[in-house]
């Protein structure tokens, strides 16, 4: 598929002449087009968008040169002005594109069909700050910002080799967003790289505001609730994924990077796992996985057991449960849906409100609604504990996107629990597992290393084994070079310090 076939390209007809470009631009009030007459009676017409150009640079470096000099050709101007990125152009499309991205266009006469383009953009950039979504106590405290060049800088600084390849693609017919695809050319599988490049090139959409747009557009199964590409705001994480042979996608204007191919299990690994010792990290991973299972199944099991399977309740718990439910007028499913929706409402309200007000919401929700609902016999206090715990557990996921998925899939489980009890939960679990088995991340199996079973990749899945055992790159990435370091060297290193002293 070539670019010209895209529907969105036809909507905007490319401009044919320079005057047409200026006519389109002049409608904006931040467009500047002035004619300057110098002391040598020479005229210059300079054109730029004042909101895109570094005004100080223009006043201090360009204007003085123009005013003092006497030029016969644009080439003379080009040689005298202390800016590297200059170009003489007559192409209206090129000139339009450059003007918009912060170039100054200089002509001798207003009617000249050509002129000199000077790069003088003003760059507003946010300072690199501490990661907020994926905060970690240990490790670097840098997170990506909205500026693509800064983000690339953060990555280049971490992977200091020439093989770190950056390929730029422009997508979005209105936004013209710069998308960078990064990979290590000697490690990354070229099939993976080409798949990602191809899918991004095939995107036909007018606005690409954030990397999550790209994420949703290049996913293998766009209708699955499970995210198939991992998004992260941590440059250290991206650098590490790149060194395992993965492909990263950075989007200008977006502080999150996408890495792929991704396994399901990776959504439950925080990057801090690599900063902690391996046993502690492994336990934390298992706790997170348990939290996820708890979060999905706890409320639906409560509904199933209380509605159908009374005989499963232990004797000692029976009276507590019956007493807590005695005055409640609803069946367990209504009670559970009511509480689950309340919790999700609190989360949603808390996420939309400014942080100061958000705290109030937490207090109102947690204390007032919770206790009041129990006191008013609308819900049982045991269910309140179960729902609150499972909400808490769903927040234990290090990647925000999968946390949302988990909160969502609780609801079908609740409904199936109400219809068929534990049989229903089992049926839906089977469907979910089958769905997960069919999922792929840019063509690589999603549920690996469970299926297809690969023992090598288990080294960094449910457990994170010590670095000395991570001598091979994960096979699901299909890296060009699988070996990370030589095991023989490692064995030599383990000799005693006094081994050769007699």
């Amino acid at each position, binding site marked *: 598929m070539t670019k010209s076939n895209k529907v969105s390209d036809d909507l905007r007809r490319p401009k044919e002449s320079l005057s047409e470009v200026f006519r389109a631009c002049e409608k904006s009030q931040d467009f500047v087009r002035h004619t300057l007459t110098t002391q040598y009676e020479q005229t210059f017409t300079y054109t730029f968008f004042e909101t895109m150009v570094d005004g100080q640079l223009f006043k201090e470096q360009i204007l003085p040169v123009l005013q003092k000099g006497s030029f016969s050709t644009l080439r003379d101007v080009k040689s005298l002005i202390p800016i590297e990125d200059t170009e003489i152009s007559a192409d209206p499309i090129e000139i339009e594109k450059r003007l918009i991205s912060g170039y100054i266009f200089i002509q001798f006469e207003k009617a000249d069909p050509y002129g000199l383009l000077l790069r003088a953009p003003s760059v507003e950039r946010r300072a690199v700050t501490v990661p907020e979504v994926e905060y970690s106590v240990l490790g670097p405290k840098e997170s990506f910002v909205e500026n693509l060049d800064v983000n690339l800088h953060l990555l280049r600084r971490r992977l200091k080799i020439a093989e770190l390849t950056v390929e730029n693609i422009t997508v979005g017919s209105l936004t013209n967003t710069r998308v960078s695809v990064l990979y290590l050319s000697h490690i990354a599988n070229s099939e993976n790289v080409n798949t990602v490049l191809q899918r991004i090139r095939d995107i036909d959409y007018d606005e690409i505001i954030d990397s999550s747009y790209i994420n949703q557009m290049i996913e*293998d*199964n766009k*209708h699955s609730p499970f995210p198939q590409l991992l998004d992260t705001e941590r440059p250290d994480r991206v650098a590490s994924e790149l060194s395992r042979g993965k492909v990263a996608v950075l989007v200008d204007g977006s502080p999150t990077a996408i890495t792929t191919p991704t396994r399901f299990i990776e959504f439950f690994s925080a990057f801090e796992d690599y900063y902690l010792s391996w046993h502690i990290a492994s336990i934390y991973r298992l706790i997170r996985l348990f939290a996820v299972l708890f979060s999905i199944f706890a409320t639906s099991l409560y509904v199933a057991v*209380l*509605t*159908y*399977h*009374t*005989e499963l*309740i232990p*004797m000692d718990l*029976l*009276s507590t*449960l*019956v*007493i807590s*439910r*005695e*005055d*409640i007028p609803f*069946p*367990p499913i209504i009670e559970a849906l009511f509480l689950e929706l309340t919790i999700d409402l609190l989360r949603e309200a808390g996420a939309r409100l400014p942080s100061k007000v958000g705290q109030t919401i937490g207090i109102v929700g947690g204390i007032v609604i919770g206790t009041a609902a129990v006191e008013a016999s609308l819900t049982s206090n045991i269910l309140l504990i179960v729902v609150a715990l499972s909400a808490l557990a769903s927040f234990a996921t290090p990647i925000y996107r999968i946390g949302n998925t988990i909160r969502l899939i609780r609801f079908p489980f609740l409904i199936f629990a109400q*219809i*068929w*009890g534990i*049989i229903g939960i089992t*049926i839906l679990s089977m*469907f979910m597992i*089958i*769905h997960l088995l*069919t999922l792929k991340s840019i063509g690589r199996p999603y549920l690996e290393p469970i299926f297809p079973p690969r023992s090598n990749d288990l080294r960094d899945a449910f457990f994170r084994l010590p670095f000395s055992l991570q001598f091979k790159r994960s096979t699901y990435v299909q890296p060009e070079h699988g070996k990370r370091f030589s095991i023989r060297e490692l064995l030599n290193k383990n000799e005693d310090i006094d081994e050769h002293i007699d």
Partner: protein
Amino acid sequence: MKSNGQRLIKLSLALLLFITGCGPQQNILDEIRIMHTIGFDYIDDNHFRGTVTIPIYGSETEGETRTEIITDTSRTAKDIKVKLDAQSSKRLHNGKLQSILFDETFLQEGVSELVDTFLRDPKIGMRVQLIGVEDKSVLDLLDQTYPIEEHVARYINDLVDQNIEDQNIPKTNLHIYLARFYDEGADPFIPVVKEKDENLKVNGIMTFNEDRAVCKLSLRESFMMKLLLEELNDGGAIEIALDEDENEFTVLRNIMSEANYTFDFNDPSLSLQIDIDFKARINEYSGQTLSSSKLNEITSATKEQIENEAGALVTQLQENNTDPLAIGMHARSKGYDISNDDWDETYKNLDVNINADVTILSTGIEE
């Protein structure tokens, strides 16, 4: 991808059609009455009285949790459920049933008709305990409060469980009862409780022939049976009398024992050798000091008493034609054909020889 999704949807719809019949009956926890115990009293050949205990859970408004009983007489086991439900404000649910009680007459007349109804109900767990009630009707036993435990159902169940787990009663439950009932080479047995002052007491076991109780064993005999049946691993206690006139005795605890059954098929009347490997610690001794000669004396006394009492027990069981030791099963497992009609006769005349190998592991801390 699309065809996959469509196939999935079609498959799920097809599956839904298949499982509509599987939709279980709703038993919302607070809309049912949970039966904990059901008991049966024998009235005459055609009538019996059924009694259930149900807990009434108290909330803040209704006061404390208490146990209530519902009772009625009926002709058949199926009918009793209807009659009991007729008295209850909420549907009676038997999923949490813990024990099934029978009075003594019932045990002697045969219980299989009633046990059969429980066997066919998938909601009934196989760990339900069958319990006999001695000297009293089940109704009287259930319609009473005991100071040691608030709920009678809980009391009876925990009492029996505790005695099976840690004390002298060999392990049994509905599952074991049924397995032995349907096996030619074994007979079931159930624990028996009776009233003792204000409380209840486990008073040994009843062993069956077919579905009738034929022989009552005391607690001491129950323990001998436990020794012969189970592999003990740090449990039970036995009192050994050394000199009854001098009131000299010792108590052995933390017993580890295992019984081995060896048949001699060459013997025309079939003979059986049971070797008990018995290890224990001395927990209590009434005399002064435990010298090594005393230890030898204790060892030989223990050996003698176990051999005598176990022997007497086996003879008693043989005389009553009940086989709770599953000797028939042991014989069959060694290749002996017990399916012919005269196995009963062979069992009765079986020559059983018991040999106990006693080891005292430690004598405790002495001053």
